[in-house]
Each structure stands twice: as structure tokens, then as C-alpha cells.
């Protein structure tokens, strides 16, 4: 599964215009409405002026939770852990995953099939299995759970996603361009820096963002290896029984807004590159 957002040019022709109801369109918009229903709820209830602990019924409109978004020290700490792990995962998995994707897409080498198989298995394996296996290893070897353990786990489960995203792009690159660079006297490093890397950059960035998104979202694997550390999803999980403070909705809304902005920029940049 590749999650790049640029649509490859396909031989499509304009659909025939009909005056009938476009059921397909209605259906698709219905599906989208379903997908966005709980998110709409989350955003709306970030403005809910609740008095007690439970943010379930509408009690009036307020901006106060946005002003006091960092009032829960523990929640803020959890969010900081999540963001720190997300950024580190993006950098580490982005780097080693891109290198792996480059090797798989460009070269033929022994162990390639095995590598593909292991990546496939790592992507397909259920999270509870990955979490349980990692915790088993940490118990057997005596590695402490906590921040480092979460980082190791997150890089492990995101690196394959980065690798296949980059590999998909490497395969479509025109080798003639690199050859032309060499003909013009560029060494292998210069060719890579000035020709290959700029062409791969959108895929590397997409892979890195995917790693970041998967990392900050993760609950199941993290819950196995987190030990005493509480990340944002873990904190929310723990707070369900006593009532989720509206600050959680605010943070969710802000993260969503940042994600949407980044995705839109990504699409615009990809469009501009093509034209």
C-alpha cells in the first residue's frame, strides 16, 4: 500500500454527462460524512462550556479551553512525549527507511526477497503481536520499558512504510537522468545530491510524514512498551473512565488542523511540481 497523494496520470476521459441523480457521488459523500462524524463531534465539543467532568451533553459555547489548553500538567507532558517521539521517529525511520527503499528500488542484491518478505510481515502483523513480541524481547534481555523502548518500537513499525513509499518513487525514476549527469562529469555523490535526491524528496517527505502520523497515533504497541511513560493516546485512554477534559478535544482539533494544513500544502506542492 502506497500512500502518496499525487495521482498518476491515467488515460481517463471525461465521464459522460447524464442528467440522472449521481448516486455514486451521493454515496461517496455519505461515506465521507460518516468518516468525519466523530471528528466533527470532537471539534464541536472543544467549544463546550461544561461545568462537571463529563463532556457529553452541550452546555454552551466557550473559547476558554483554547486559552487554558495546557492547564492539565500531565496531559501537556503526555502530548510533549508524543510529539518528541513522533519527530524522532520521523527523522530516524525517514532516514533509514529511505535508504532501504533506495536499495530495494534501485539495486539487485542477495537477501532482497527476504527483506521484502520481512517488511511485508511487519506491515501486516497486528499491532498487538508486535507489541507483545517487543515486550517479550525486552523482558528476556532486560531492556527497561519507557521512552527509549517506545522510540525503538515506533521506528520498527514505521520504517517499512517509509521504505515502500520511497521504493515506489525510485522505481519510476528515469535512469537516463542520472546517466546524463554522469556524462556531464558529475561523480556518484554529486549525481545523488543534485539529481536523485531532489527527485526523491517528495517521496521521502511523504514517508517521513507518514511515519510521524503513525507514531503520534499509536496506542496498542505503545501501551505494551511504555512502562511509566504516558503518551497522548495513553493518557486519553486512562482518562476515559473519569471523564475526558475538553483540553483533549482542543489538542485533537489543533493536531488535526496542523495535519490538514500540511496535507494541503503537500498536494499543492505536488501539483505545482507537475505543471
Amino acid at each position, binding site marked *: 500500500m502506497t500512500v502518496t497523494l499525487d495521482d498518476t496520470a*491515467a488515460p481517463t476521459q471525461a465521464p459522460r454527462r447524464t442528467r440522472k441523480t449521481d448516486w455514486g457521488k451521493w454515496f461517496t459523500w455519505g461515506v465521507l460524512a460518516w468518516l468525519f462524524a466523530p471528528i466533527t463531534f470532537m471539534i464541536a465539543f472543544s467549544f463546550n462550556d461544561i461545568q462537571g467532568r463529563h463532556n457529553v451533553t452541550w452546555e454552551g459555547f466557550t473559547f476558554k479551553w483554547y486559552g487554558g489548553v495546557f492547564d492539565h500538567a500531565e496531559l501537556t507532558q503526555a502530548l510533549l512525549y508524543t510529539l518528541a517521539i513522533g519527530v524522532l521517529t520521523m527523522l530516524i525511520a525517514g532516514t533509514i527507511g529511505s535508504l532501504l527503499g533506495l536499495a530495494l528500488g534501485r*539495486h539487485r542484491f542477495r*537477501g532482497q526477497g527476504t527483506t521484502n518478505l520481512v517488511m511485508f510481515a511487519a506491515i501486516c*502483523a497486528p499491532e498487538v503481536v508486535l507489541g507483545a*513480541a517487543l515486550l517479550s524481547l525486552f523482558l528476556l534481555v532486560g531492556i527497561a520499558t519507557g521512552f527509549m523502548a517506545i522510540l525503538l518500537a515506533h521506528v520498527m513499525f514505521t520504517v517499512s512504510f517509509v*521504505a515502500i513509499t520511497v521504493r515506489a518513487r525510485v522505481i519510476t525514476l528515469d535512469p537516463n537522468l542520472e546517466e546524463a549527469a554522469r556524462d556531464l562529469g558529475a561523480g556518484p555523490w554529486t549525481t545523488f545530491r543534485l539529481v536523485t535526491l531532489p527527485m526523491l524528496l517528495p517521496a521521502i517527505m511523504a514517508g517521513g510524514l507518514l511515519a510521524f502520523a503513525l507514531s503520534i497515533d499509536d496506542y496498542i504497541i505503545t501501551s505494551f512498551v511504555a512502562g511509566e511513560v504516558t503518551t497522548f493516546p495513553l493518557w486519553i485512554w486512562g482518562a*476515559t473512565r473519569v471523564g475526558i477534559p475538553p483540553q483533549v478535544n482542543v489538542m*485533537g482539533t489543533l493536531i488535526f488542523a496542523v495535519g490538514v494544513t500540511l*496535507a494541503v500544502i503537500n498536494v499543492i506542492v505536488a501539483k505545482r511540481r507537475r505543471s
Partner: protein
Amino acid sequence: MRRKLTPYLLALPGWAWLAMFFVVPIAGMVSLSLTSGNVITGFYQTFNVGNYLDAITLYSEQLVRSLLYGLGATLICIVIGYPAAYWIAFHGGKHKSTYLLLILLPFFVSFVLRTISWKFTLSDNGVVLGTLKSIGLLPADFAVLNTAPAVVLGLAYNFLPFMVLPIYAVLERMDHRVVEAAHDLYASKLQAFLRVVLPISLPGVFAGGLMTFIPTTADYVNASVLGGPGNTMIGSIVQTQYLVNNDYPIAAAITFVLMGVLLIGIFSYARALGTERVMEVQAK
């Protein structure tokens, strides 16, 4: 010589990471699943196959339930995801990438938070049910939460994009002129779909099925949040045994039983779809 080494050097860090934190841990879990003992006395390797028997006999109810829920969620994802992917690929026009982006955007809200949002949206006296009850459209004791359909729909909701994307990828790549060719040969719309489009898109359905069936069967977040105590799934048992009871041998054994069940499910699914090109699809 240098050129020959290049791919190995490029692949080494990623490969080493996967080997150390994915392959080795699975092997470690095999070893752990065969030990005896408890957390106080320590665990000793006794090749205790009894752990697996315990795992199957004690938790068969949760295993079967997980399989059924996973299967139900996958079917719902196919029924909902296929038409949506089809419409975007064939009629999305120049807005295709925008539609795909919209399908993916919910991922920017944490999985746990989305599920909990459903819980609040559908709570017994919340904004939806409370309103419907107060205007008398629903009986006062009507509930969505803590039921099996709530869990299955929650699972389908959370994993739908994993079904839409692979189907879309296949439909988008196919040469749309083959549909015209079918019409030229006097195939009706339905015939053209059943005999041309559907067979071409089966690898996408298969890939999407894998990407939804595996995580939904093993998931326990939806079951815990939306299902209540009566709908426990097997993943929850694994987590409780590891983190609360610290009974690692049985927990590891349950994990492998779950993996075995999933593999059986995948192979029968491959049989049903007649797809022998499992790896080929994924390699693309």
C-alpha cells in the same frame, strides 16, 4: 567492488532495525510461550506445550468472537469501500486526489480519540440518541453502546481507508478503455462490471481485505470502548495477561494462537477469491 557493496550499505540500518526489533522478538516470544513459572519465581524453559492448550481452551470464546467481528468489519468495509473507491477512480475527474485526501484526513485524529468520540456521540443520552429519545423517535431504553454491532461498525469505521486505498489504486491504474471495449461487444453495464472491472480489481480487494481483516481481528480498542464487558476480544486478553497479570507464557501462547487463526483466515480468504498472487499484489 564499491558498487557491489552499495545496496548492502544502504539497506543495512533498516534491515538491522527490523531484524533486531521484529524478527528476534518474534523468536523470543516463541521461546517465552514454552516456559513455565510465574513472575515471582521467574520463568524457566520447559518446552511446556500446555500453554497452547490452555490458550485455546480458556479463550476459545474470545477467539471466535474476534474472528467473527473481524470478518464482519471486513465485509462492511468491502461493501462500503468498493463503491466509493470505484466512484472516485472512474468519476472523480480532476478532483481524484482531493477525494483521496479526504478519505485519509481522519487519520490525523488519534485512533483512540476517534473511537472515544464515537462513544460520546452515541452515548445513551448524548447528542444523537438523547435528542431522538426526547422527540420520541426512539424508546427510552434504546442503546447503541455495549452491543456487538457497535463494535463491528467501530472497527469498520476505523479501518475503512485501508480498504478504499488498495481498491482505488487498482481501479485507477486499469486501462479504462477495456470497459468501452466491453460495451462495444454489447456487454450491459452490469456485465461489463462483473466480467471486466471486478476481476481486474480483485487483487485490490484482496490487499484491502488483508489490511482490514488482520488489524480488526486483533484490535481491542473498539471492543473495550464501544463494546463493554460482554464483547471482549482476544487482543484484550493478550494485553491483560502481559500487562496486568504478568502471565507471560500464556500471553505469548495466545498471541501465537491468534497469529495461527489469522493465517488460516488469510489462506481461506485467498482461496475464496482465487488469488494466488498474494505477494505480487503487496509488492506493487
